[in-house]
């Protein structure tokens, strides 16, 4: 057996140790095969009186192997997906019907399939360790626990607790797990096996309540119980909060609703059917592929060129102590890196450092960090106005004002002090890296590292390769990002790079709708209906109209007539230049900000942009998604992007493109390139050339190609736990 071993003991209580290859135990075909064999052995061997299930890892079991599940949509029929769920379901059923009591001795986190295994055991004993969390987080990957999890949790914890845990996907620490009755006992580390054996020694009944004749399903009376009926009504309303694009919450709610009314095995079968529907739905594939497989691969260096030794940044210089610089300084110091934070005077630099003090202070307040550790992080940041302090830095990140001349000056001053090996990174979000690199003595060591705001919360870093940036510099930049535990994507230099460029499509599409008579609330709600966290008009208010208009003005200055201004320019100019409203900072553009009250769409909009009937919500939703997806396709065509993974990760983590799509490229692939092109042609006819597919994309459609190759998703060898 590869994934576990069964050790018999003189007292009759066998120890089953889960110990798969790799860092964690996961549910996969090998595990199921082993467990089936072990269960049969336990059932048949009279010398075995009971089983203690434990793990040889620091965690108990992390869940299903997502590397396998991600292929469900492409490779499995619904029947096969159901059979897949049924095998794992039967495995758990065999455990609880083996005639011997099983105890899950949970020594560390038990999530997803791992906790389903524990639920199938006759008793769950959890180690008293805050890291030993338990839960069923499948909803986060567009799935449900499909091997008895919804049914057993519903019966054991009751409908309300089960729905809370299943729909939120949250995991709970030992004290709460005990309170919710999803574990039976919490014991100190080291006492697990003893406690398990002590329970087995009491000679517990190995028959589960639902296997006793006469057992009645908890909600057998169905909707004739008004309280239950009302609870499902509220739950159905509650899942509307997560929108209408995600199939998993409804499937979970359905599984619990039906499961609690039916005999146990019928309930399991129904749960398996809902699981099969989700596994063969592209949404689960899309979420798993981008948010787990691609993300982990990117963090482990998928885009790092080979052949360069691992680079460790010990000292970093951050130039500019504004909001971005302050954030970069904080995350660097937090990763154990010495930071020199430079601005025009020490007081300004100190203000930047104060940001770290504020963030750390909150963590200490919440009890998430000790004062000592906070002090240590803070001590690593040296605020200064003297570039000489950059001596010895392995890398600098420039985050000064977005102005070519100021940046050039900064580059020259820094390079005068920096050691030869140091990487010079600019955090610019708008200026071409190759152009900024002209000020550098060593443009091959010049790179773009585009952090997102707020830096400590946004996982993404967009790495921009200038024309002369070397592979070695890329490797070093990625190593620095790995030190920060952030997620990199790598793009080639171009106006707006990738994320800013495609994000512009979203805000311009929203602004353009205003001139077409779409009510402003509809513009915002249509974006939210596709799953964008914030509407484009609200985004514009936060950004101020100056920012997108500056990008346009710059492009016009550089390209003249060759440049086609984006769709929302006229509305933005009118708002700022004629109506005199440019953003929240100056009192509001599309919104009003009443003191002490909630922001409201500005009532004057109707006068300047009269509302017309005839808008169609579905059409608006399509426009948002297609505008962004089409611009992403152009980025791939122009080699601004080199991989679909970079595109999808950038979309989800850069500007909040909805996760159910998997990202802008997965969105196209899910629709199919041919159908995407056809629909885009229709949109181009109605709304303009921004939707027009290129010859390159048409050719892809004609050849029947997709952006992802089916094998690509599962190339990573190591298991990816849920």
């Amino acid at each position, binding site marked *: 057996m590869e994934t576990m071993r069964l050790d018999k003991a003189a007292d009759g209580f066998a120890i089953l140790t889960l110990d798969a290859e790799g860092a964690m135990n996961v549910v996969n075909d090998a595990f199921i095969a082993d467990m089936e064999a072990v269960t049969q052995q336990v059932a048949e061997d009279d010398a075995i009186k009971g089983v203690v299930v434990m793990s040889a890892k620091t965690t108990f079991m992390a869940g299903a192997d997502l590397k396998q599940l991600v292929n469900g949509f492409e490779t499995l029929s619904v029947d096969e997906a159901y059979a897949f769920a049924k095998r794992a379901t039967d495995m758990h059923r065999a455990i609880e019907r083996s005639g011997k009591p099983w105890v899950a001795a949970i020594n560390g986190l038990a999530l997803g399939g791992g906790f389903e295994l524990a639920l199938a055991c006759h008793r769950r004993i959890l180690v008293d360790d805050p890291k030993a969390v338990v839960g069923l987080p499948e909803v986060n990957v567009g799935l449900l626990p499909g091997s008895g999890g919804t049914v057993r949790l519903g019966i054991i914890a009751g409908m309300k607790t089960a729905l809370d845990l299943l729909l939120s996907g949250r995991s709970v620490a030992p004290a709460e797990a005990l309170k919710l009755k999803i574990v039976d006992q919490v014991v100190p580390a080291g006492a697990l096996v003893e406690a398990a054996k002590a329970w087995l020694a009491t000679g517990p009944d190995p028959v589960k309540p639902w296997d006793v004749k006469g057992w009645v399903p908890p909600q057998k009376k169905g*909707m*004739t119980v*008004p309280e239950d*009926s*009302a609870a*499902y*009504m*509220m*739950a*159905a*309303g*509650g*899942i*509307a*909060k997560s*929108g*209408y694009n995600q199939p998993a919450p*409804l499937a979970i*709610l*359905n599984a619990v*609703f039906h499961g609690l009314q039916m005999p146990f095995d019928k309930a399991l079968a129904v749960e398996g059917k809902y699981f099969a529907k989700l596994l063969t739905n592209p949404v689960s594939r899309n979420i798993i592929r981008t948010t787990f497989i691609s993300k982990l691969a990117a963090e482990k260096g998928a885009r790092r060129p080979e052949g360069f030794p691992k680079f460790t940044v010990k000292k970093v210089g951050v130039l500019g102590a504004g909001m971005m610089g302050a954030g970069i300084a904080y995350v660097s110091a937090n990763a154990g890196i010495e930071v020199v934070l430079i601005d025009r005077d020490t007081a300004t630099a100190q203000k930047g450092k104060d940001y770290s003090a504020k963030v750390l202070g909150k963590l200490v307040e919440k009890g998430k960090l000790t004062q000592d550790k906070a002090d240590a992080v803070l001590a690593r940041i040296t605020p200064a106005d003297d570039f000489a302090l950059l001596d010895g830095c392995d890398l600098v990140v420039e985050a000064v004002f977005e102005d070519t001349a100021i940046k050039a000056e900064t580059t020259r001053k820094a390079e005068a002090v920096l050691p030869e090996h140091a990487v010079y990174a600019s955090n610019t979000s708008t200026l071409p890296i190759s152009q900024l690199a002209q000020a550098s003595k060593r443009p091959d060591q010049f790179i773009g590292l585009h952090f997102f705001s707020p830096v400590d919360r946004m996982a993404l870093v967009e790495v921009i390769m200038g024309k002369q940036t070397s592979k070695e510099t890329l490797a070093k930049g990625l190593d620095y990002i790995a030190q920060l535990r952030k997620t990199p994507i790598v793009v080639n230099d171009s106006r707006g790079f990738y994320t800013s460029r495609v994000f512009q499509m979203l805000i311009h599409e929203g602004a353009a709708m205003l001139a077409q008579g779409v*009510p*402003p*609330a*509809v513009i*915002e*709600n*249509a974006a*939210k*209906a596709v799953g964008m966290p914030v509407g484009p008009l609200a985004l514009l208010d936060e950004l101020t109209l100056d920012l997108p208009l500056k990008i346009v003005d710059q492009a016009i200055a550089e390209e003249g007539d060759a440049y086609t201004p984006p769709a929302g320019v006229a509305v933005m100019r009118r708002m700022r230049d004629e109506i005199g409203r440019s953003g929240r900072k100056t009192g509001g553009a599309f919104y009003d900000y009443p003191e002490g009250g*909630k922001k*409201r*769409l500005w009532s004057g909009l109707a006068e300047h942009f009269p509302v017309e009937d005839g808008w169609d*919500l579905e059409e608006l939703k399509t426009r948002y998604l297609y505008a962004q997806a089409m611009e992403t396709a152009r980025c791939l065509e122009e080699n601004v992007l080199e991989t679909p993974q970079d595109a999808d990760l950038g979309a989800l983590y850069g500007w909040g493109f909805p996760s159910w799509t998997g990202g802008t490229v997965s969105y196209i692939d899910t629709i199919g390139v041919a159908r995407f092109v056809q629909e885009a042609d229709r949109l181009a006819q109605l709304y303009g050339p921004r939707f027009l597919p290129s010859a390159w994309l048409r050719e892809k459609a004609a050849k029947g190609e997709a952006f992802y190759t089916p094998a690509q998703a599962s190339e990573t060898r190591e298991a990816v736990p849920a």
Partner: protein
Amino acid sequence: MEAYIYDHVRTPRGKGRPDGALHEVTSVEMATQLLKALQERNALDTALLDDVIIGMAQPVGEQGGVLARAAVLQAGYAQTVAGQQIHRFCATGLDAVSLIAAQVHSGMIQAGIGGGVESMSRTTMGYDSGAWTSDPAVAYGNYYAPQGIGADIIATLDGYTREDVDAFAVESQRKAAHAWQNGYFEKSIVPVKDILGKVLLDHDEHMRPGTTLESLAKLKPAFEGFGKAGFEAVAKARYPEIEDIGYVHHGGNSSGIVDGSGLVLVGSLEFGEKAGLKPRGRIRSYANIGSEPTIMLTAPAAVSRKALKAGGMEAGDVDLWELNEAFASVVLRYQRDMDIPDERINVNGGAIAMGHPLGATGAMILGTVLDELERRDLNTGLITLCAANGLGTAAIIERV
């Protein structure tokens, strides 16, 4: 064949709570007392009746099992009188009358009684929840939201402020009090008696005469909790033009929770001759319709037009309009849609003041309109109700 209204009766409306005057009276007993009253005041030979349809919005528990048949037998009617239960949410009471009329129209029956009963104090609201609210696949798929959210959506879309809806409620209370003071309801009220034969209630108990804008202003919006729990998201999915829902409805400008019953005696001309009764009016047309189910309260205008068309009439032919006051915004929307002046609609107040015993209300307000047509010596009335899940019903009556 024409369908004539020979008589109608209703109970007073008791507060729909355990301390309400009618709480000790079962639903079947309320219907029984009304059936007896109809028999007695018309000296009716009940063997002339073919069918009794009594509906309710909660046909479960004591209200289940074809209550009409049980009441017929309890009231000592001829055992040949059939019974039937219908359920079309709040449209039930009027629809039961329409269905009796339709059977007369078709020649299927000669005479019958239609109406409804609801003891809201004795049957828990939600007993009859059903798939539309609580089967997750159905509720989510059809964008179900509680009715109060629908009322607040109407107010938001149409721009009715809290003052608008409260002012409507104050008016309803004033008109109801005025009607009671002047005995406008006397003809049809049958006081409910207890088992000793003592009168338990002879007036509508829910009314709060003297309600003012100031007193209503103290009440908190009732449906914001539902909105924040997720139904705001449902509402916006269906109505993306909503930036924020204005929560303006509360107990004081929504229909009251009460117990009560109402019945209408309908028959052919031939029945009247046999029974020695003179028709008071006739049912000219009736209609049912479905409308957008998330708001679920906007059917009245569409179903009224449908009933007008079925009767070969125009809105201008209607003298008095009666729309059940489910929520203030429902009536305000209807008046706007149908262009009805204040002095022609719900002239004696409505459910905001007197209460809305769900399945019974339709039969009650048909009677109210007929009484008022007679009192004012007018000819034509249109009665309509919105109902859950987007349903709506209407009937047009005229004096003969």
